[in-house]
């Protein structure tokens, strides 16, 4: 959100550059005000944009094909091992074979299990028994609300076009956690932990070394595929067509094209049931959608209240007199 303040701008221009302390102060204040509400914006760096043809091959992502997932959780362990993430605790949940519950600041890949078992022999009429499994991960949105909401500029797009939290800049405010519609981010809040937000980096360090991310590397059935996201989308569409031709008419892609308020996700999924069955929002909202309206409404309400109270007090004083 940018507010143009013509007086300051014009004044700076008329004073010329390098006009002593006052000008510096004025510039600083000007920038702060100009960049409200993000007081310290990230330095813009050229990052690959999927829309730009020249960058198309630079944006890397995941395609997670749940029809190939065998629920082995190798991705979870490989992620924790490579990134040296701590175990979250030993709790038996009784929720199918899932004992780590959800993505968090210390669990960046998580395998979900959903049992849909026909109760007995007669159940075949209601459809065959299924046990849905899906390895969930950060979606690396192209217009990521976590990145928008970060007040310190810790969350950036990296050289591979993916959303990255810079640990040393994060101040642990947690805005990104509430902003994410997929519940990806979490804060390391255990005693002695750093209290910062963490999430999947798409193994940025491995990518820099030319390696495949740990989860995709460890997946025994290629359920998790990694590569230039444009190539993945093409392969995914072909895969859905193939599955549908073989009679699996439930297969569809989630996040390959726009979903909810979001454009295509850099980590997208092939699902076989309603997104809710996988704990994914059917139409994820952008939390800052309508923000201008809300700001305007807030401002209007404030002004109205101020006006009302002014009226009230002025009228009252008159009466009191």
């Amino acid at each position: 959100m940018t507010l143009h303040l013509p007086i300051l701008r014009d004044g700076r221009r008329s004073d010329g550059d390098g006009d002593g302390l006052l000008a510096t102060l004025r510039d600083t204040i000007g920038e702060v005000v100009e960049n409200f509400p993000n007081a310290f914006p990230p330095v813009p760096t050229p990052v690959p944009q999927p829309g730009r043809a020249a960058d198309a091959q630079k944006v890397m992502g995941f395609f997670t094909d749940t029809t190939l997932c065998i629920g082995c959780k190798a991705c979870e362990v490989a992620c924790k091992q490579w990134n040296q993430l701590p175990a979250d605790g030993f709790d038996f949940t009784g929720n199918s074979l899932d004992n780590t519950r959800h993505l968090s600041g210390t669990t960046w890949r998580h395998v979900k299990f959903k049992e849909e078992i026909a109760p007995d022999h007669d159940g075949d009429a209601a459809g065959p028994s299924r046990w849905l499994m899906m390895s969930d991960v950060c979606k690396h949105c192209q217009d990521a609300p976590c990145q928008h909401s970060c007040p310190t500029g810790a969350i950036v797009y990296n050289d591979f076009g993916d959303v990255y939290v810079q640990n040393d800049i994060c101040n642990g405010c947690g805005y990104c956690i509430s902003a994410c519609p997929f519940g990806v981010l979490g804060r390391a809040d255990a005693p002695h932990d750093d209290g910062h937000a963490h999430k999947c980096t798409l193994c940025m360090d491995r990518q820099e070394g030319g390696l495949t991310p740990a989860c995709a590397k460890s997946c025994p059935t290629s359920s998790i595929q990694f590569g230039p996201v444009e190539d993945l989308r093409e392969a995914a569409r072909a895969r859905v067509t193939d599955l549908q031709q073989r009679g699996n008419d439930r297969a569809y892609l989630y996040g390959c094209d726009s979903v909810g308020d979001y454009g295509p996700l850099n980590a997208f999924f092939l699902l076989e049931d309603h997104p809710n069955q996988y704990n994914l929002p059917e139409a994820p909202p952008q939390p800052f959608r309508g923000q201008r309206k809300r700001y305007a409404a807030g401002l209007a309400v404030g002004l109205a209240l101020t006006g009302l109270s002014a009226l009230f007090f002025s009228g009252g004083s008159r009466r009191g007199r």
Partner: protein
Amino acid sequence: MPGLGASFGRGAATNYQQDLANADCILIMGSNMAEAHPVGFRWPMKARERGATLIHVDPRFSRTSACCNRHVHIRAGTDIAFLGGLIHYVLEHEKWFKEFVLAYTNASTIISDQFQDTEDLDGIFSGFDKEKRTYDPAKGHWNYEGAPAEQNPAGGATRPEAQGPGGIGKKNAGEREPEAGDTGQHGQSLEGGASSHAAPRSATTCADPPRDATLQNPRCAINLLRKHFARYTPEMVANICGCRPEDLTEVAELLCANSGRERTSSIVYAVGWTQHSTGPQIIRAAGILQLLLGNVGRPGGMVMAMRGHCSIQGSTDVPTLYDLLPGYLPQPTAEKHHQTIDGYCENEGLPTGYWSKMKPMVVSLMKAYYGSEATGENDYRFAWLPRIDADYSQLPYFRMMNEGKVNGYFIFGQNPAAGAPNAALHRAGLRQLDWLVVADWFEHETAMFWKDDPKGPRSSQVKTEVFFIPAASIAAKEGTFTNTQRLIQWHDKAVDPDGDSRSDLWFLWNLGRRLKTLYRGSTRPQDQAIQALTWDYEEDAPSYLPDGRRSAIKDEPDARKVLQEINGYYTNQTDPTNNKRKLLSGFSELKDDGSTACGVWIYSGIHPTYDRNRARDRMTGSNPTQPEWAYAWPNNRRIQYNRASADPEGKPWSERKKLIWWDPQEKKWVGFDEPDFEPGKAPDYRPPPGAQGMEAIAGTHPFILKPDGVGWLFASAMKDGPFPTHYEPIESPVENLLYPRQNDSPNARYFEGPMNLIDHVPSKEYPIVATTFRVTEHYLSGPMSRFNSWLNELMPEMFVEISPELAAEKGIHNGGWVTIRSARNTIEARALVTRRMRPLQVDGRTIHQVGIPFHWGYAGEVVGDVANDLVSLSAEPNVSIQEDKAFTCDVFAGRSFTSNQTPTKPMARWPTMSPVPLTPRSAQPEGRVHRGPGNP
């Protein structure tokens, strides 16, 4: 795997796992492949993506079932009934592959008319001795018409074991190590059966038995088979298994539709079949089915045995078994005819096939053991080998231990205190020892039984002195694995082991060196063998790690030298390149005059020259069998019996399924794989009368280890009958509906006693069927996984899978505590109430089943009760394997009375906490969110 050996010749998986991708239909049964072998499961998934149908038949709906197109719930322990139903369907509907069956099996061979089937004798075969509870196949006439039955004092096989002395591929008990042997029995029969042969075995060989190709004779093997399985109708099978008749016919139709010239189907199994009182017979039934459908020796057509450990095939090839010498040569017995090499070879060798060359194998082995000390004059010191006089396999040995007859014990990489059947009995045995040495990565249940066993006495009352030796991890040592498909793969050492940890090789070699030092001056005759033992595995030059640093480990032997000795060498020739002993290039070079030495003859050729270690080959190419990726014994063959991939004339059955074929121009077998056949033997070759050795095998006979060269539908080599028969498990709430007069296996053994009570079938006291299983997140009894928090958070507590119906009946709710009681012991677990378990309708009754994972024990970061405490100690007649995939129990809501377990290792949120070396703090892994002391 006697079931495979009896059917095909070698008791090892017929194909390689990658070949599953070529199958058109895969039946997974007795295996939870997606969970227990997730990496290998990529190949069935590939097959599915290519359009194959995957079927899972199992008591539980597991992650494997979720990945299959079709799942059928059956009652644990009814596998033979189900497979029998499939065989019945194939025969009844005339769906068998006629050209294949008539040419490549003994379907048309005429069986002795004095043999009587279970149909004639109400559930048992002829030749049963009710008092001894054993079969005598000779008395029962389990033989071909006109062939003499083998005289075998201990009731071995009537037919000679074509697969030879050792019975190749003797199966270890999947998750628990060795289970060979039987009382006073011996590895040489196929996988565990008989004692040594009193008479030369040549007398009984019959390469050309009478046949009736028109199949009119009612004594033809296939007609007997038809009669035997006539009872296994879909309705009867459904009634026994608790499935629907349509389930059976649907599976049968899928298998039949995907077999024949153009298509092939595979069967995959694991310990869900082997660990039964009828285990090997279940595998036999699969072998019969695949022979009938023509799915043997062909791409995508196989019986795939999934092994329970990474190198368990290796541990039987280079055996850790008490009754085998390396390469499946039988350990000599204390009997007279085994006193000399000649007597031993005469009694254990065979006149036909490769086992006719037994003497060169034994002489070369003795030369490898004793070097220059072994000479022709002293019979190559054959007398120094230990002789067997009793059953020293694991289960009877622990019984002896319980009786105080064993003083000390070494345990490497094994955890019987939690992983063995009736583990409580095993722990009681360990308490009778004076000393115990345990070498392992972690201090697991067996190393801590003296103080942490919650069901044991106080540590002050345990006399055993326990020595715990820290073992090197896999990355800190070099050596080979032999996997389920006989593939031997070398792995290099990446780092030095931590602290005082040392490789098992280091430990054994240095133990041997110290013993040799201690016995150096001895003049006693019994010490000569140790003095003469060749033990020259010193490193010639210091070894280096991959990062270029010198290894800091002192006295580490050179594993390559061990492999070179396994490969074998000439004792009288030197390699011109380095003046060392010249290495053998294959087992065909073995001599019986002492000029060759060879540690394991079947591995010979793996290290043909000093600079070529074929186990280290890592070349991939366009050949689908990838022959240059490591080395598969024997002779790098990837698909066994691959002569069967071509029709009798030597042409591929179809273009789609071609593997090897006869090239009439070049006059040899060519194709993608190394032929498992004499390379120059033409398809039209017919043996002359009275032929011996390999000459007796015709050009159309692919099963070259069988004396008649064909696959066996009728197999006399089994100890519990030539045909598989459905018997109930030793403990079952259901009587045998097929043969009401014979409930359980007639000759399985169970060691009943106060610590091993058995609730015999029909079990009244314990009405619920229990089966044990594995999950992906843990490994076996947990010594390698329950010390790692990344795995423990995924599967933190002992649980039991229960159907909602049973939970409602017993007042159990999801996540609550359950007490499980069997005739042996009581354990507790958390309830996982799930529709994946389902009550079954068996004979009009509702039978409940529970699934119990066996990964927990009292040592480690997460602890829980030992599932194997519930299991009985029993022995299947062929291989003495226990039955832990089907037994009876009862369940109750609530905790058991002894639930006071605390982890022996505090939780470490990071299993490894050292910083990445040579890396600045800013570039350390992202997840180092810990700010406390010790974190970089």
